[in-house]
């Protein structure tokens, strides 16, 4: 199985990328101007107190030693203490991860379902007035700042029409027995609606344009013409042959889109006060809570890199030319 070997080498390659990103992150947080502790050391502290604090965070050691301590800790899943919350960064991040993933995946499912259908439709209607109007419009949605779209949706649907709440994940004072109860509650869905819609409107352009251009290419393929000569129904020709083939790269792009979406989440979560990784990163950076910022950044990077790997594997899995080589 040369296929397994390819996956293994790709995994190794991405592991090296991850290591490089981790190292860049370390250097960024240590070598940048300004003592990372400055914000947390009260000027009234005695020199001994300051040094004790530095020692507590391991900042008194030489850089290379700090680096190995940092790597060792990472391997054990140890991300340090948050300055601000005085609690382990890992715990805080894993508590926020589900919120971010729910937002990301729900918006992307909507975006892909819409984008694939609309893209196939536009390919079918190519050259029509609908298509001529739709393509520039779709390009414009890609040109929108996500947070601005969020602002407009908030102003209209929340502040003006009052259909949806303005931010957060639950009504003030509401309490749920479990996370499951929260995520399945009606309230949660109404809180999810606007941020997910914002991200979905922004994200639909990629699958739509990709699906459309793939369909146009595939429709010119000989096997599609042959399917017509075989007298197969229009539905069979378009869906089973053209769309099935055009879908391959679109499905692969889903994994890549998850990675991009996570970056876009940073602003949209901030707008909607959505307690996720992106908002936490922004807050942590603003508050100079470096361990937390570093952890959130790392988590996002891990998901981005992981998604690149999944994209490769998905493609190999879905395309028999690779999986049955």
């Amino acid at each position, binding site marked *: 199985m040369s296929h397994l070997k390819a996956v293994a080498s790709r995994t190794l390659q991405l592991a090296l990328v991850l290591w490089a990103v981790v190292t860049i992150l370390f250097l*960024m*947080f240590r070598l940048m101007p300004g003592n990372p502790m400055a914000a947390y050391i009260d000027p009234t502290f005695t020199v001994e107190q300051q040094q004790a604090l530095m020692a507590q965070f391991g900042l008194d050691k030489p850089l290379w030693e700090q680096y190995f301590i940092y790597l060792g800790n990472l391997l054990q899943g140890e991300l340090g203490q948050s300055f601000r919350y005085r609690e382990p960064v890992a715990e805080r991040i894993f508590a926020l991860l589900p919120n971010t993933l729910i937002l990301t995946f729900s918006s992307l499912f909507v975006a892909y379902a819409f984008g694939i259908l609309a893209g196939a439709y536009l390919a079918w209607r190519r050259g029509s007035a609908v298509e001529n109007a739709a393509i520039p419009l779709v390009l414009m949605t890609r040109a929108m700042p996500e947070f601005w779209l969020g602002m407009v949706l908030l*102003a209209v649907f929340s502040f003006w029409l009052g259909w949806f709440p303005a931010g957060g994940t639950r009504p003030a004072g509401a309490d749920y027995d479990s996370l499951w109860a929260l995520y399945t509650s009606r309230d949660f869905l109404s809180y999810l609606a606007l941020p997910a819609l914002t991200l979905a409107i922004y994200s639909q352009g990629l699958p739509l344009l990709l699906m459309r251009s793939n369909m146009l290419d595939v429709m010119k393929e000989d096997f599609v013409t042959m399917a017509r000569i075989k007298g197969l129904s229009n539905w069979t020709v378009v869906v089973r042959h053209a769309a099935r083939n055009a879908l391959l790269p679109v499905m692969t792009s889903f994994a890549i889109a998850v990675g991009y979406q996570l970056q*876009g989440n*940073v602003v949209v979560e901030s707008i909607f006060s959505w307690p996720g990784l992106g908002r936490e990163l922004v807050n942590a950076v603003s508050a100079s809570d470096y361990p937390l910022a570093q952890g959130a*950044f790392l988590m996002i*990077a891990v998901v981005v890199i992981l998604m690149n790997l999944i994209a490769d594997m998905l493609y190999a899995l879905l395309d028999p030319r690779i999986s049955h080589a």
Partner: protein
Amino acid sequence: MHDLALQKPGLVGRLFRSLKLPLSDPFAVFGLAVYATFLLTAIFADAIAPYDPTEILYTPEYELASDLRPGEQGFILGTTSLGRDIFSQIVYGTRSALIIGITAAFMVALIGSVVGLVSGYFGGWVDAVLMRLADIAFGIPFLPFVIVLAAFLEPSIWNVVLAMALVLWRDTGRVIRSQVLTLRSRGYVDAARVCGSSDLKIILRHIAPNILPLSFLYGSIAIGWAILTEASISFLGFGDPQSISWGYMLQDAFASQALAKQAYYWFVPPGICIILVVSAGFFITRGYENLLFPKLGR
């Protein structure tokens, strides 16, 4: 004299022609027109804007001119909660948007093209190293990276440009590299080498002119990316408070309850401007793609 000029177009003319501007595509022409309009606005901002964008204005009755609706007291797009003229801010915002957009695009296109050229032309370990660097750049979440960078460095519009130069050359680099590989596989590069041309000469004379449109294409995409990124960064409060940008305006509006006040005149125009500039880049790009890769069709 005139005939002579036609025969030997100057360097500018030749450069312009080798960009192969997609002038037959109506959308691309629209995009170029949008660019031209914003460019003129940025250059003549002082003459166009009625007020200083940061000046706090008062009504003739000596009251703070805050939260005025469009047209009230002669303010075309109204005023902010702090009594600043929104229209003037939009006009000056054009300046920082274009400065950031164009410099970032230039950096991305330049670095990406150089990396792609060197990587594709020389191959071997140079190629391997550069492409691994590109892999690493692909592993860095861009917006979080800019946020962290902006937080450590002095607030400045150049942070976005720096971050883009550090990370976003990856896409351009890869595409240019594969284009160079295709060009190299054609006979004339080998022919030039047999004739004793140096590597530098071959790159400059035979390969660079062929990838220039591609660099320009990725440059136009990068303009949009830079403006969107700057807007996001300013919106999150990591921008330069001294310079007025569209992202700063949106942040100001959001923080000043413009949404609850239903002050659409405040936060809609900056968004429209961003969409116009960024989509102009997309339209030009699309025109290019039709021109460069006609087989893609439409």
